[in-house]
């Protein structure tokens, strides 16, 4: 395994690290790790580095890089206020990899807002043949609401705790001081934007049509917000025939960032197994 630093993009403002396996030329996809929010390219708890090196041992090359304005990548002179700017950065990354002989097809990896960019990047670029989404988009179903609220409704004590907790949240938000300026997590660029369900369904159909492989992973970190059971993804889109392109895996005891090593190891196992099944043949 070898690693080298790359700078690329029209202004060479994008910074990344390319991880190359010792044995190249097996036509495996190259993975591209996208920023999770404001975190730089190494990922939460260095997750991207560890996974990149593990995958290189199995023959998969990868790139972890910072979108313009994040991590070590400078803002482009044209600015990065355009919400589509990350998509151009992803295209530059794929161009660099392809022109450098590091792959002709790619798997985009993203956690949280990184999953947002991975999905949008996959829709736009047919070179993307796979996506790995950690706590990516999810759409609530009636079963979600039953699982979310039934336990409280069936237990007066839990119901009281739930009401008390929600009331506490409302009051604490009301007490929050105005602060002395915007924080990155208040920056609109880092806020979650769920696409209209019909638009997302259209994207999914287009990706299935292209035979793009999709791995969706959900954690306990989003179970009270929008995803809380294994089949929710398919239930949300009952009219779509995924034709073997979709795998959903819940980690109901892991947190959003896969903080614990044992959870991260299981997640890595899921990803390597999924990659091998879909791309190793």
């Amino acid at each position, binding site marked *: 395994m070898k690693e080298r630093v790359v700078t690329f993009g029209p202004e060479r403002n994008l910074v990344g690290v390319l991880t190359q396996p010792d044995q190249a030329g097996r036509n495996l996809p190259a993975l591209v790790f996208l920023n999770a929010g404001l*975190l730089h390219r190494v990922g939460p708890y260095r997750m991207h580095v560890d996974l990149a090196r593990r995958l290189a041992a199995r023959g998969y090359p990868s790139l972890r890089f910072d979108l313009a304005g994040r991590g070590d990548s400078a803002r482009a002179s044209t600015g990065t206020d355009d919400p589509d700017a990350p998509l151009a950065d992803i295209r530059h990354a794929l161009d660099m990899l392809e022109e450098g002989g590091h792959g002709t097809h790619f798997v985009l990896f993203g956690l949280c807002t990184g999953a947002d960019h991975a999905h949008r990047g996959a829709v736009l670029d047919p070179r993307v043949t796979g996506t790995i989404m950690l706590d990516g988009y999810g759409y609530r179903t009636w079963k979600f609401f039953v699982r979310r609220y039934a336990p409280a409704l069936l237990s007066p004590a839990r119901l009281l705790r739930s009401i008390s907790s929600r009331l506490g949240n409302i009051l604490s938000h009301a007490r929050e001081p105005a602060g002395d300026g915007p924080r*990155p997590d208040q920056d609109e660029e880092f806020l979650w934007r769920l696409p209209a369900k019909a638009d997302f369904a259209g994207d999914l159909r287009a990706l299935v049509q292209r035979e793009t492989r999709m791995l969706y992973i959900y954690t306990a970190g989003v179970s009270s917000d929008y995803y809380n059971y294994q089949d929710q993804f398919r239930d949300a889109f009952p009219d779509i025939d995924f034709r073997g392109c979709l795998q959903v895996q819940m980690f109901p005891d892991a947190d959003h960032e896969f903080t614990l090593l044992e959870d991260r190891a299981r997640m890595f196992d899921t990803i390597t197994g999924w990659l091998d099944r879909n791309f190793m043949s």
Partner: protein
Amino acid sequence: MNPYFFGSSQRPLFGLYGPPLASAAADAGVLLCYPAGQEYMRSHWTFRQLAYRLQRAGLHTFRFDYTGTGDSAGGLEDGGIDVWCEDIRLAADEFRDTSGIRELGVVGLRLGADLALKASTAGIGANHLVLWDPVVDGNAHIERLTAMHEAMLRDRDRFGSACPRSPASGRYREQLLGFPFPDPLRADIRRIDTAGEDPAAVPATTLVLAAEHPGADVLEQRLAAAGRLRGRQDLGSRSDWDELSAINNTFLAPEGVDAVCRAMGADR
């Protein structure tokens, strides 16, 4: 910015050289030393901002990842206080070769401050040292991280109905807040006693301290007694290093960045 790997081919380190961004460039530069573990993850953005401010003031900058951290080779099991101090020495040499600077300032945050102090004491030719929220007592630091990790396992907001999570056993036993923390590394960090370093060997030092920084007064007194204390800058607010709710938050510290820039004469 010029990012590249340096050091040995067996154990390359990721470094990032930043040239001066002012017309009147100085022949001085600042080597930036990150914290470790989840504090590294939190502070990367602030180091970028700090480097940019220093470069705008005409200084060269160099920041890098220690062995087993960030983009550098290895895992945390390959790291340790001596290894990381050697990394600082390598980075200082690399910085001088790349930039041609004659005057070297070193800034360290949290554990990075301790490493910067130790490496400087061992002799990397630093002219000026800034210790920002140093870990003064390594044993207390490990105890705090351990307590935070145990509290995290009981955090319902994090693990939902899977809460409380059991402490890991076997190969995952040695972890703290998202990172493997092998016993030898913990033992290394426990031995840190910043106030116990020989102050006579320390370059001129400025302390940048959040409010209520435990143990900093002893360090200040020892540096002052040895004539090595260049100044102390107290930040108005408390730090959140020991707060579990903050472990995934970006460490934003405009006041601290201002203070470090002042200490480096980069506030003009």
